[in-house]
């Protein structure tokens, strides 16, 4: 015997929680719980702002040499002045502005390097993962080869041969770093391809283009963004390292690596030449690592949970 009509609240109960406000609230709680994520993101923001605003904020010209004012100590030391808050280098160039300008080089290298690496890697990895079989074997062979080589060695080798320019550096990093993006992409594509709902989409007659965009791409975003953050941090390191060896951008361009190379010569006499670029790198790197960790926590399990 039927009773009174029951509102089907079972369904609305579940869907109620997934409104936009709840998602925002969830994000807020995630950020708060893991405050390091906020710190990391703020740090990155500072660096980005510094890079973008550098030419517009009335800094000293980073290229202007002034031999009369060379090797001045930072402003808070004796002999320093607030004209040059971080002091000057051996050619009298203002360190503060060079440090800030250095962010532009590092971020450019990091950003474009990662974009190239990701684009290249994603395409290659997706092809390998999607088509499998011979194509896959043909692609993963060289990928594993490159990934198991001592990376630094080859980057240095190549840089030594190609010569100093921003473009070269970006290209080198972009190409040599693409295998890791390829490997991650391939892994994800394989996993998703095998999953039940792609099978059902295929059997329902979906075209492979739709499958790629509706199913594969959303699941790739999480791991790839996380990877991109860490790789960008690594590229900033490597650029500095190459600059330190004199293999990065030309010596006049203010880059943190170049500054460190110069600072090394005057280490015990004028240590601040070394200190500030190093601190800048450390600051940027910490921001990226913290953000990358937070992103990984946020994006990964979320995606996997939501999919269920």
């Amino acid at each position, binding site marked *: 015997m039927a*009773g009174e009509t*029951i509102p089907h609240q*079972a369904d609305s109960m579940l869907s109620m*929680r997934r409104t936009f406000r709840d998602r925002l609230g969830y994000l807020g709680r995630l950020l708060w719980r893991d405050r390091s994520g906020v710190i990391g993101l703020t740090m990155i923001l500072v660096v980005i702002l510094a890079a973008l605003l550098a030419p517009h904020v009335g800094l000293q010209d980073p290229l202007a040499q002034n031999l009369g004012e060379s090797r001045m100590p930072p402003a808070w030391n004796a002999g320093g002045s607030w004209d040059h808050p971080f002091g000057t280098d051996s050619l009298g160039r203002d360190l503060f502005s060079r440090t800030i300008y250095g962010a532009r080089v590092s971020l450019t290298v990091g950003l474009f390097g990662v974009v190239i690496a990701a684009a290249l890697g994603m395409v290659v990895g997706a092809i390998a993962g999607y088509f499998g079989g011979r194509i896959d074997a043909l692609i993963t062979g060289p990928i594993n080869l490159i990934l198991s080589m001592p990376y630094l060695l080859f980057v240095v080798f190549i840089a030594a041969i190609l010569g100093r320019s921003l473009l070269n550096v970006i290209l080198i990093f972009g190409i040599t770093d693409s295998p890791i993006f390829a490997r991650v992409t391939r892994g994800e594509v394989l996993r998703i391809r095998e999953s039940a709902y792609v099978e059902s989409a295929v059997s329902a007659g979906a075209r492979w283009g739709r499958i790629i965009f509706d199913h594969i791409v959303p699941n790739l975003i999480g791991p790839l963004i996380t990877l991109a953050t860490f790789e960008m941090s690594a590229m900033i390191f490597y650029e500095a390292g190459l600059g330190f060896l004199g293999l990065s951008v030309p010596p006049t361009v203010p880059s943190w690596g170049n500054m460190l190379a110069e600072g090394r010569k005057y280490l015990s006499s004028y240590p601040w030449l070394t200190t500030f670029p190093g601190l800048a790198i450390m600051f940027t790197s910490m921001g990226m690592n913290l953000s990358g960790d937070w992103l990984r926590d946020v994006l990964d399990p979320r995606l996997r949970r939501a999919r269920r």
Partner: protein
Amino acid sequence: MPPILDVKDLVTRFDTLDGVVHAVNGVDFRLEEGETLAIVGESGSGKSVAMMSILGLIPSPPGRVESGSAIFQGPGGPQDLLRLSPKDLRDVRGAQVGFIFQDPGTTLNPILTIGDQISEILTRHMGMTAQQSRNRVLTLLEDVGIPDPELRYKSYPFQLSGGMRQRVGIAMAIACTPQIIIADEPTTALDVTVQAQVVDLFKRLRDKMGVAVIWITHDLGVVAGLAHRVMVMYAGRAAEVARVNDLYEHPLHPYTLGLLGALPRLDAVGSRRLVSIDGTPPDPLISVSHCPFAWRCTHAFPRCWAEAPRLTTVAPDHKAACFYDLDKGRPRDA
């Protein structure tokens, strides 16, 4: 004779990022000596969490047992398991209460031999020497029907089939001749034919040992040949408790009726459609103060939305938490 396990008012919650999960919301039951109690419910009904809570096997952040008592008649006298110190609980687990888990593929440590994993229980609780425990393990392996025990003693889990691994699981549970065995969906992950073998083996051992068993499952079919009494759980609460036959022939809770209706039956006359229950289980993040089944119940009436029904005896040895009388087809008299 007091029941060997008497649980009252068990409440377990989990603190998660999404909020507080109300996994178990006030469960009472008793387990008599030598009896097999089946606990039936869908995923998320709280059946596993409830049993694990009693023995302190819930990861403690984020889980917490809010309230309840679990009086166990152990060899040293009655103890409230929920009030025992972790050290004392460890003495109970494995020795007086044995466990069998669901997935034999992941329940065994992959890098230790079978023999090692069984004998460590014996060394821990019964103080046996290496030689003594080895002999006992070989006997156990024979008892659970594993051929060539000497070889299997030195084998690793990956070298055994799923069915054999589950037999090892049973061997681990009975090693110290416990008074209670808690089996959490032990046959769910097995092939159907293997299931039958394992259940048979288990019945034989149980009858031989006279051990009390809590058998958790979502499969009503297995329950019929195995259990004496059944407790049906829904949304972290007990919906109905009865003797097996009473439950099957005379269910008194609409949820149970729904579950039974969804069972395909060989003796169905003509072609009977499988009846499924409309709707989905309630969200465990929300704690309700009315009957949790009300949304999906075809017999719900205003009282169902106003208060939560308690588990009450509505027939001899038959309890149900429901305000509606299925026999009479109308709300129960107060």
